[in-house]
């Protein structure tokens, strides 16, 4: 018989409930504010459902009616500089934070101040998709953001906002504050990787993040007990070393008291917390009908939960303490309902073309359709005033350096001059500069800002996104291999790349993603892609692809100075190469959107980037064709250098787009499309392309070589073009 010793998780897990003494001792102002907030939120959401019924809400209307106690109880434990974010069901969380920001306490005699009315109006406008909204109508119900108030943005990807909240918490901690972040999500999101990865990461780094689980028992129609082993979701906290509180979410005071404890724990620098509040939404996932109408639960169950309504609870307790009478209770509700009717009247009117009684959005409240693509990215003006250099005209000293040393060198220089730069990724802190030496010497010089992460690309990429949105730090996230972008795809494409546009076009997202490109290293099908074409599908991302050490310095500096997310592609073939690089000067940029002509030619324009620049030059020498080789350097749609490309095409009339990777994920497709539309009359043959095979490269050396393009394939491509010359 083995000896069995029971083990205890290191972190505690407790349940918190209130006693009559707690209610008797509660500050009357706290209770009044609690009630006022909940009444405002409920009146607000009732109006939203009414408008949804009238067909005036485009898209889903995820109401939280019934759940108000969780959000309000927890927000009242926070201060104005604390942050919150949430999920698709986030009206109540957003409103609680926004209301608390403009009115930390509420007066039940005069509930709705002018400032508060404006918050309600801008929130409703956003949900209806109108110009006055917090996100100018872009985000709607599921993307409510008011950074000033610490409302960091609600999220339509279940669990998608959690890594971003972790980034916010990182920034709060490392800026030396005691501020905390609360990320709200539900029972459904408790099962998704982003959340669990973030629990692990924040626990490892002691970040002040509260994982606030609004367990309303149903993920759409699926009961929590159906999809997890222990439906008491706070049980997960101790598994990650995070203390957890379980509380009845229909008791706002209990939520408040539990949250106070959690916040105290975080402000003390002890790391993250989990608070699970069991709540109930009276309506279905979406829209104005109860869940029972869809058959996944009973009317009796709903009635039983309504008996425990958080608003009624606070009203009862306040009346019992003599703080309110029945008349005053009714007056609070009336003030909230009247305020919402007034707010609605600002943007909704009788429909002159509809049946009597039908209403419509006031025509002038809509955004201008011309606004559709405004603010996808910044205008690049943040680079104005920075010194741009080109190798040919560089007046400083140039010496021969290894590419990889320049990678570490320029980062060292920037971290020296800019204390906001933070590097994070797998093994970046060990192995003498990560797997390739790209962060060599940095951990010793900047121990607090070189962060070796757990193997959680989605969490640490999102954490970087949260840091960038906060703005106090500039994250440099490293992907050890390019194919890992798929693991982190939600954070890179749904969150970071869309964060500026989706919330109205004004968020700055100073985020740098370094991605290795490792074609030819024998790592096989899941490590060998050229990701440029995939990144190029996201309009919010800028992409740079340095082919020389000199350019690496300037492009990395530009990437760090830009307030857009920038992907910096680094090819391992180049790491070992040497080339002229500045001896001392690591402080210049390469001009935004400027390609480099590496070889002048008359007969053919080769458009290429990264390691294929050298392969193309080699192929041109071998064939003797008078080709012009353009190193694109800036690859994204907004930054690509059409002036240089156009000038070359008008001269040569023949184009060969050269890249290394497989055709499916290739970069050249969109470029060729754009070329034939911009320069059709200047082409003497179809845009020709060099790229890899169809499948991802295999491990076998022979098959791997056959799967991607190098000099030989460029030679063949040039010969194809030459056949097209005729003559």
């Amino acid at each position, binding site marked *: 018989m083995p000896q069995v010793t029971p083990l205890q998780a290191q972190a505690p897990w407790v349940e918190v409930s209130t006693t009559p003494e707690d209610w008797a001792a509660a500050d009357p102002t706290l209770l009044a504010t609690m009630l006022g907030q909940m009444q405002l939120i409920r009146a607000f959401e009732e109006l939203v459902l009414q408008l949804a019924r009238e067909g005036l809400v485009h898209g889903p209307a995820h109401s939280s009616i019934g759940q108000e106690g969780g959000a309000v109880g927890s927000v009242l434990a926070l201060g104005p500089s604390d942050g919150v974010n949430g999920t698709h069901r986030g009206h109540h969380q957003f409103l609680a934070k926004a209301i608390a920001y403009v009115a930390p306490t509420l007066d039940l005699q005069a509930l709705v101040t002018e400032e508060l009315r404006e918050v309600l109006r801008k929130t409703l406008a956003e949900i209806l998709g109108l110009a006055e909204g917090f996100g100018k109508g872009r985000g709607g119900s599921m993307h409510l953001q008011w950074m000033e108030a610490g409302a960091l943005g609600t999220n339509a990807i279940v669990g998608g906002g959690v890594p971003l909240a972790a980034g916010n918490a990182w920034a709060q901690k490392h800026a030396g504050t005691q501020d905390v972040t609360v990320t709200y999500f539900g029972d459904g999101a408790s099962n998704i990787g982003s959340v669990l990865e973030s629990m692990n990461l924040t626990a490892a780094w002691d970040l002040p993040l509260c994982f606030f689980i609004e367990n309303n028992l149903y993920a759409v129609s699926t009961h929590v007990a159906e999809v997890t082993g222990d439906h008491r979701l706070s049980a997960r906290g101790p598994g990650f070393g995070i203390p957890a509180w379980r509380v009845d979410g229909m008791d706002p005071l209990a939520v408040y008291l539990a949250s106070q404890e959690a916040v105290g724990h975080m402000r003390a620098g002890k790391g993250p917390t989990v608070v699970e509040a069991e709540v109930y939404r009276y309506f279905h996932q979406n829209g104005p009908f109860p869940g029972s109408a869809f058959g996944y639960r009973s009317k009796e169950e709903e009635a039983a939960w309504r008996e425990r309504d958080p608003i009624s609870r606070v009203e009862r307790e306040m009346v019992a303490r003599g703080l309110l009478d029945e008349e005053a209770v009714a007056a609070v509700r009336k003030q909230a309902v009247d305020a919402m009717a007034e707010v609605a009247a600002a943007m909704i009117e009788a429909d002159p073309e509809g049946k009597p009684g039908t209403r419509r959005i006031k025509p002038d409240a809509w955004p201008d359709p011309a606004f559709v693509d405004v603010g996808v990215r910044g205008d690049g003006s943040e680079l104005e005033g920075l010194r741009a250099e080109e190798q040919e005209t560089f007046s400083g000293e140039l010496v021969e350096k290894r590419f990889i040393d320049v990678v570490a060198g320029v980062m060292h220089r920037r971290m020296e001059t800019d204390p906001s730069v933070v590097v994070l990724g797998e093994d970046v802190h060990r192995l003498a500069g990560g797997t390739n030496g790209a962060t060599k010497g940095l951990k010793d010089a900047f121990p607090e800002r070189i962060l070796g992460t757990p193997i959680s690309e989605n969490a640490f990429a999102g954490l970087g996104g949260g840091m960038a949105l906060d703005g106090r730090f500039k994250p440099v996230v490293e992907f050890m291999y390019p194919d890992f972008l798929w693991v982190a795809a939600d954070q890179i494409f749904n969150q970071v790349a869309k964060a500026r546009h989706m919330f109205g076009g004004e968020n700055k997202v100073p985020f740098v993603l370094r991605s290795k490109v490792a074609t030819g290293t024998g790592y096989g099908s899941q490590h060998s892609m050229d990701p440029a074409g995939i990144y190029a599908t996201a309009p919010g991302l800028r992409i740079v692809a340095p082919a020389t050490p000199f350019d690496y310095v300037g492009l990395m500096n530009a990437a760090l100075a830009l307030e857009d997310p920038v992907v910096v592609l680094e090819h391992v073939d180049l790491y070992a190469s040497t080339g002229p690089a500045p001896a001392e000067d690591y402080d210049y940029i390469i001009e935004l959107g400027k390609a480099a002509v590496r070889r002048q030619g008359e007969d053919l324009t080769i458009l290429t980037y990264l390691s294929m620049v050298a392969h193309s030059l080699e192929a041109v020498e071998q064939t003797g064709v008078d080709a012009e080789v353009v190193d694109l350097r800036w690859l994204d749609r907004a930054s690509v250098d059409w002036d240089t490309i156009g000038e070359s095409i008008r001269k040569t*009339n023949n184009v060969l787009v050269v890249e290394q990777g497989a*055709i499916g994920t290739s970069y050249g497709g969109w470029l060729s499309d754009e070329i034939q539309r911009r320069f*059709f*009359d*200047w*082409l*003497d*043959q*179809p845009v020709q392309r060099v*790229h890899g*095979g*169809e499948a991802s490269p295999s491990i076998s050396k022979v098959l791997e070589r056959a799967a991607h393009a190098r000099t030989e394939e460029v030679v063949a491509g040039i010969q*194809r073009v030459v*056949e*097209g*010359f*005729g*003559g």
Partner: protein
Amino acid sequence: MADVATIIRLPEVMANATEAVIASWVAAEGSEVSVGDVLAEIETEKAVVEMNAEEAGVLAKHLVPAGSLVQVGAPVALLLSSADESYELAALLGEEAAQAQEPPAGSAPQPTAAVEAPAAAGEQAEGPAEGARSRVFASPIARKLAREAGVPVERLQGSGPGGRIVRRDVERYLAEAPAPSATPSRPAPPVTAAAPAGAQAELEPLSPMRRAIARRLTESKQQVPHFYLVAEPRVDALLAARAQANADPSRRKLSVNDFVLKAVAAAFRAVPEANVAWSEEGIRRFSGVDVAVAVATEGGGLLTPVVRGVDRLSVTEVGAAVADLAARAREGRLRQDELEGGTTTVSNLGMFGTREFSAILNPPQATILAVGAAVPSPVVVDGRLEVGTTMRCTLSADHRAVDGALAARWLAAFVEAVENPVVALL
């Protein structure tokens, strides 16, 4: 009578023209036409000519609107035997197209076969199958260059994949062909839309004639080695002879230019070595003297109708011929053959008071004479200064065919003829 329905096609209105503009429709849709009736006016590079009905019937439909540039042989109108006939235009046109495309027996597979061939990812696209379709395959830049040079792509031989006409084919054609042009006849619109600062300008579309003038004269000035000789003959005797002739009211009035033309003919008779034209094959020597006369037309055009056999005509006949040609040139009613040939050209701006000018050669001609105004001038006779009437004439010559001394001898013969009109008229 017409067949039940006949497609009328653009006739080949002039040699070497592959396209022309339907300047206007004379016969309206629905009108009855007889053989020889004018259906439309057609503007080519050089002239406006009439398109006549070859069959009687009802002109049922204009297939192209007035102002359209149409390829020779393209359908332009539908003629019915009577207004009552119904017709299926698409079927009529399709029938013709089908006939035109009928493959020779035993040749090409069904046209669908090429389309069905599956293309693997990354595979090179198929080039156009030769002869499978009637359209011409040319790369965009080749079409653009050909259009700018005024060369129909149909005239080019494609050397690219599948016989595609590519840039190099156009360039080779332009380098080799006798009628290439270095100057775009229709420059591409500027890439930037910004208007230049300064005076406002309106863009007037180029007529075929304007294009032809631009192309031919640019080509001439750039490619033909011009040189110029100036002479200033006295014309007192010529003016006296003219006055004498014009004194008879029953006769048609003669112009100074009519005498000049006769003098030109006389000079060529005296110096036949100058009556030549350059060609790559050799120097062409003419036996007669056909003089083209530059005529300004309404709307800023320039035509050069030819007076044939000036050396054999009397001055009166020359005058009548010039008057007729000039009048019809101004009306755009010249026949194509009246615009062709010519061994030399006379351009006279004397009537505008122009004292002296030099003219651009009209290829392949080797000479052109620019004639200024006859004005009173100081002349020296036997060492004494007196007032005479002189007329400055500038001969432009193509040095490839005519050397300086030869041109000088010709000009001396011309001066001799002008100053002694009776000799010239003999």
